[in-house]
């Protein structure tokens, strides 16, 4: 079992080396004529005003939170799917209850308008 992850490890090493090699090759093959104007931040030809790292809307944070909760739910569901053939009907009802509680959460979000993207 571990040796299979060995393949993943070697593949990940190769998957890092390929883009690094390509970028390094491009760096040396391409011309190098640095220019202060060229290296400026691109903003449709206008000089940048103010800081890039402006404050963002809280909506993004909310989406992240909802995603986290559903992610955890999914992780609990997958082992149940693997064990599904051996489960009794009542165990399946327990799993269904788990999902139903989270559907309630989704409808709560919906009612409160957290899913609107204004």
């Amino acid at each position, binding site marked *: 079992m571990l040796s299979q*992850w060995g393949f993943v490890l070697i593949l990940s090493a190769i998957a890092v080396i390929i883009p690094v090699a390509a970028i390094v090759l491009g760096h040396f093959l391409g011309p190098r004529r640095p220019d202060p104007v060229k290296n400026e931040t691109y903003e449709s030809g206008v000089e940048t005003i103010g800081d890039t790292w402006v404050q963002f809307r809280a909506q993004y944070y909310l989406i992240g939170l909802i995603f986290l909760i559903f992610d955890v739910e999914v992780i609990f569901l997958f082992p149940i799917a693997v*064990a599904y053939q051996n489960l009794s009907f009542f165990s399946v009802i327990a799993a269904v209850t788990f999902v139903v509680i989270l559907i309630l959460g989704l409808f*709560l979000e919906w009612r409160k308008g957290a899913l609107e993207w204004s």
Partner: protein
Amino acid sequence: MPELPFPLPPLPTAPQVVFIMIAVLAVIGSLTVVLARNLFHSALGLVAAFFGAAGVYIVAEAEFIGVSQVLVYVGAISTLITFAIMLTRGMMFGATSPRNRQSGTAAIITALTFVVLVALMRGIPWPQAGEPITDGQAIIAGLGFAFVNQYVIPFLLLAMLLLVALAGAIMLARDRK
């Protein structure tokens, strides 16, 4: 072959070498979290540390937990942390100093925790490495079976907890009108 006066230390096995690489990654990531001057770099260091933790789980043949670690911590929590950094305007400007008045206290507490952990680890009778697991699928199936049988009450309580977290998320993150 001439006899050596002392026995050579055994060569590390392949999983041990991999473990050392992963541990180095995790330690470098953790140090970046503490020492980086830029808050976003700290978040990236945290991601590296999370990957290290996932790697340790996988080397310990707990692949389901390892993958869950990547899914939840790298996918969701570090994104959330990055969003949180970008939502708090004051933190984005310039370099924040990694030191403040509490750094001395923190160092002492960290050192003490380290000592306690090392003492604990030396005291615990660690189980010997058994046979490598051949049927990892059965372990995952067993986990799923346990969720809805022995541990069905905690399992449903967990669903309630997630529901409460969802409700709390709305209260916290909704734009105040």
